[in-house]
């Protein structure tokens, strides 16, 4: 039953690719650069068409590789190139307390916990320390929009005001105690 959940889908070969995250990280940096240059341009020509185009591109590329759920606020490179939205509980800050002894998911018994995989893969890549970033709540309005576009416009990095206040507060306390 649970294998039919959309979070359980894995395309042939995609797991192997993610198990070797270095090339994906290069692709990430490249995409970031290209998208950053090209998108503002495209938006000037036709905002509507560029969004459709980006969405189509993401659905194919990230859909195949990561079983992308189109949350529109990608954190893949911080989570060992493993999409946290493939966690049935949508946890973006680490594994829940229900992981099975064999490292599989509490809900989808046949699949490994995405956070077990994220941990392993992050340590084969170069962003392991980013695993511990406190990821803000998901902006549910961005569902089904283009994460690449949102990255350029900054729509993917606008946590709620209260969250921002607390983060600034923690950082101020940390820097005070460091002095």
């Amino acid at each position, binding site marked *: 039953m649970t294998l039919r959940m959309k979070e359980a889908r894995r395309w042939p070969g995609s797991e192997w690719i993610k198990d070797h995250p270095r090339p994906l990280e290069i692709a990430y940096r490249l995409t970031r650069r290209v998208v950053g240059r090209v998108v503002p341009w495209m938006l000037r020509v036709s905002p509507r068409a560029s969004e459709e185009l980006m969405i189509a591109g993401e659905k194919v590329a990230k859909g195949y590789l990561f079983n992308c759920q189109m949350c529109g606020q990608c954190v893949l490179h911080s989570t060992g190139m493993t999409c946290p939205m493939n966690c049935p509980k949508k946890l973006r800050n*680490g594994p829940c307390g229900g992981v099975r002894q064999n490292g599989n998911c509490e809900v989808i018994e046949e699949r490994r916990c995405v956070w077990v995989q994220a941990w392993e893969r992050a340590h084969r890549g170069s962003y392991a320390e980013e695993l511990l970033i406190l990821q803000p709540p998901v902006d549910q309005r961005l569902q089904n929009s283009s994460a690449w576009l949102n990255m350029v416009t900054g729509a993917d990095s606008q946590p709620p005001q209260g*969250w*921002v206040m607390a983060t600034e507060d923690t950082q101020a306390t940390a820097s005070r105690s460091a002095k």
Partner: protein
Amino acid sequence: MNARVLPPLRSGSRLERILRSGQMAVTGEIKASDGADPKDVIKYSRPLANTVDAINAVDGASANSAISSIATCALLVQKGLEPTLQMNCRDRNRIAMQSELLGAAALGIKNVFLMSGDDVVSGDQPESKRVYDLGSVQLIRAAKIMRDQGVFLSGRKLSKPPRFFIGAADNPFIPPYEYRHYRLAQKVEAGADFVQTQWCFDPEVFRRYMQRVRDLGLHERVFILVGVGPIRSERAVEFMRDRVPGMRVPDEIVERMRKAPKERKKAEGVNICVEIMEQVREIEGVAGFHVMAYGMEDSIAEILERTGLSPRPTGEEDSRTVEQPAVASNE
């Protein structure tokens, strides 16, 4: 004995005061009533009333509907008992969560325990919708924002911030083992003041975990209560091993329960619990126990007696904690 630099007093709950005084705290868990009769809640609370410092009221445990945590807590407060409100991320979105937290504070609930929650597949309504609008770490942060910043997640001001002693779940007994202490670090950074761990059947695994926790200095920033409890029968322990998500039950434990003669099963379960507690309490950084005794609530008193944890302190005689100014924010 306690070199801990204490953070500001959070809610002044009995649980918090006992922990701050450096004494071992003991918490328990009340059976969730499957009915609408408030007398059931009072009945179920009886074996816990003067035995533990605070009583967790579960929130749709195992994804089964039952009387709500907030109602149970309110009834316990009326009886003069100290509850801990459990809240999961499975059943409500962030709007409902924040509203409920305010309501809880208004009802006199001072401890909260915030977690992801068992998935809907564990219950009798696996066809339900999962919410998970926030994850546990984000919910912990949201509660901290309300308490310390005095605003909702959105930044809108609260007329009076709630004062909570914020609890979180911690499971050292499952993969990814190398991640688990960092996971605790995340929850502490988010705002957890205390954690209650999953049921500990394997002190060795826990000892190794605590070593890594101490390496990160976390034992001085968060109170760690270790989950323990008596087992009723061999069937119960096998069920936990095979069916309850997130449990690690070594075969020796199952074997011991199997070998115990029929009329001695419960006594053996209590023995195992006491032995584990004796081993675990010596570990540096352990601040107390969370005793889960489903269907064996009557044995809690005996367990605490045998481990020297009863009678419980009132949490009031300690001047160090009483004189603390009630600082609600970290300005």
